[in-house]
């Protein structure tokens, strides 16, 4: 019995020696990056990582979601190398990072147009920002108040750790006044993922929700959004996000600590390259510049 344990131990030790040796004898572009944050961006980050690892087989990049808040918290706490965020970091958060000795830098890596979606059976097809604000704060509670059927409105929101939640709060509910008094109605359902919102909207005639444009499938209807009641009302698309006629499009960001590894730089260069931006478009987001 004792001998067997010894044998197993020696196998484990020799294995760890072999693998330990391999990782030390690596090439230039090697090492690992931990990317955390926005659920909106997690698939995008995954595609970048896969393509990057194809180009540099010795690098390993792990991408996880959890929400922009999660990414920001972990870049402040020093538990990831890059935070993907679908909202900008707040002043307090930047200060928190500084006071923990890890000041961060912001890089814009793409654009996301937020689609407001309803069930296709809902006759409402356009809303103003003011109406949206009323719906999500709970002052408008019935679809007939915005020209629809006599049905109570079911509000679907993302959880508070979502950058989409915060962006929508500041730019739609508070209409750009970031410190405004408006809040989500307490009746708003906090859904754990964009996918859950999409599914609930597909099932419920009275639901309204918001998700990144990339999440919309054929089973939901996108709402055309206008700033003024007389229009124009604009549907979300790559073109309307790029020419800024669609009012609720936001920057997709990455935050890195000021002091970071060379591998992080190489990865960021790749993300901002034409090839990286091509991936942005493939994932149904809006690239930073239109293809030449």
């Amino acid at each position: 019995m004792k001998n067997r344990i010894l044998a197993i131990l020696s196998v484990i030790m020799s294995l760890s020696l072999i693998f330990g040796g391999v990782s030390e004898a690596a090439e230039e572009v090697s090492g690992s990056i931990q990317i955390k944050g926005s659920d909106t961006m997690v698939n995008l980050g995954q595609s970048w990582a896969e393509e990057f690892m194809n180009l540099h087989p010795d690098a390993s990049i792990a991408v996880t979601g959890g929400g922009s808040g999660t990414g920001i918290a972990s870049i402040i706490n020093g538990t990831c190398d890059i935070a993907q965020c679908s909202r900008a970091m707040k002043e307090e958060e930047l200060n928190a990072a500084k006071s923990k000795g890890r000041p961060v830098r912001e890089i814009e890596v793409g654009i996301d147009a937020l689609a407001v979606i309803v069930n296709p059976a809902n006759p409402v097809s356009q809303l103003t920002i003011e109406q949206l604000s009323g719906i999500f704060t709970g002052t408008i509670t019935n679809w007939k108040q915005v020209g629809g059927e006599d049905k109570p409105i079911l509000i679907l929101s993302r959880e508070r750790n979502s950058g989409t939640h915060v962006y929508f709060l500041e730019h739609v509910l508070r209409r750009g006044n970031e410190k405004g008094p408006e809040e989500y109605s307490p009746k708003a359902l906090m859904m754990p993922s964009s996918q859950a919102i999409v599914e609930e909207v597909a099932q419920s005639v009275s639901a309204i929700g918001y998700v990144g444009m990339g999440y919309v499938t054929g089973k939901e209807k996108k709402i055309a959004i206008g700033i003024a009641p007389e229009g124009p009302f604009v549907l979300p698309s790559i073109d309307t996000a790029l020419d800024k006629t669609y009012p609720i499009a936001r920057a997709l960001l990455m935050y890195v600590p000021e002091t970071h590894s060379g591998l992080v730089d190489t990865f960021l260069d790749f993300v901002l390259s034409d090839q990286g931006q091509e991936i942005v478009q493939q994932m149904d987001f809006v690239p930073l510049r239109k293809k030449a």
Partner: protein
Amino acid sequence: MKRQVESAIEKFILLNGIACIFFVILIFLFLAREGLALFKTFSPLDFLAGTRWYPISTPPRYGILPLFLGSLIVTLGATVISVPLGMACAIFIGEIAPRWLREILKAGVELLAAIPSIVIGFIGMVTLAPWVKHLFHLPTGLTALSGSITLAFMAVPTIVSIMEDAITAVPKSYRAGSLALGATHWQTIYRVVLPAASSGIVAAVMLGIGRVIGETMAVMMITGNAAVMPTTILEPVRTMTATIAAEMGETVQGSEHYFALFAIGLVLFVITFLINMTADIFLHRKRK
């Protein structure tokens, strides 16, 4: 030599026993330290009786009353569903079922306990929620009722196995005496066996409730997570556990929001502690 080995083993076991209690105390102290830190900056009364949970607003509001009531309504619903079901199941297994069926049923109930809660939550989300929605003509099926039904399935195995133990522990002579006096099988069950096993039955119910109130993943998926003051069981609610799970990842260590989540954890700990203690008291009463 033999004696030394013996005493070494005894000490080792003693150490393990103490370690368990030690860890519980450490966890409690950590929870208390982090949770109570909230009250340096936020009034305990506003925390316990506040009706608005807006942790990321400025100024933030950490009123856990809607969360507490959310947990309460889901737990009550689950208890109402699972206790009769579990009790009937335990009586059938313990008193009525023939031996071969008893073994199958016990294995089946234990298997139910082995299903991961996220799987039950997922099944509830895709099958139960749409059903609840259509049945009651609601705008959404993600309600406290759906959560209660889902959690009831998780509490049933706990309730059945402890209750069944209590029922089979009733001495054979009680049953024989009752039957000899001319009572029917059913009369024996509810006039003799159940009263004799009552403390174990109460303990089973309490532990089932403890299981339900601490459950997180399934309720997060199925109750809609809207922090409203619940008025009916057909509304979405947000439970304390789901709030901690949903918000923990985003908080910066040492921030007020972080302490507030620990304070919720402390409340949960106190509640489950009281429930388990009650269950324990009843279990010990039985042994006397």
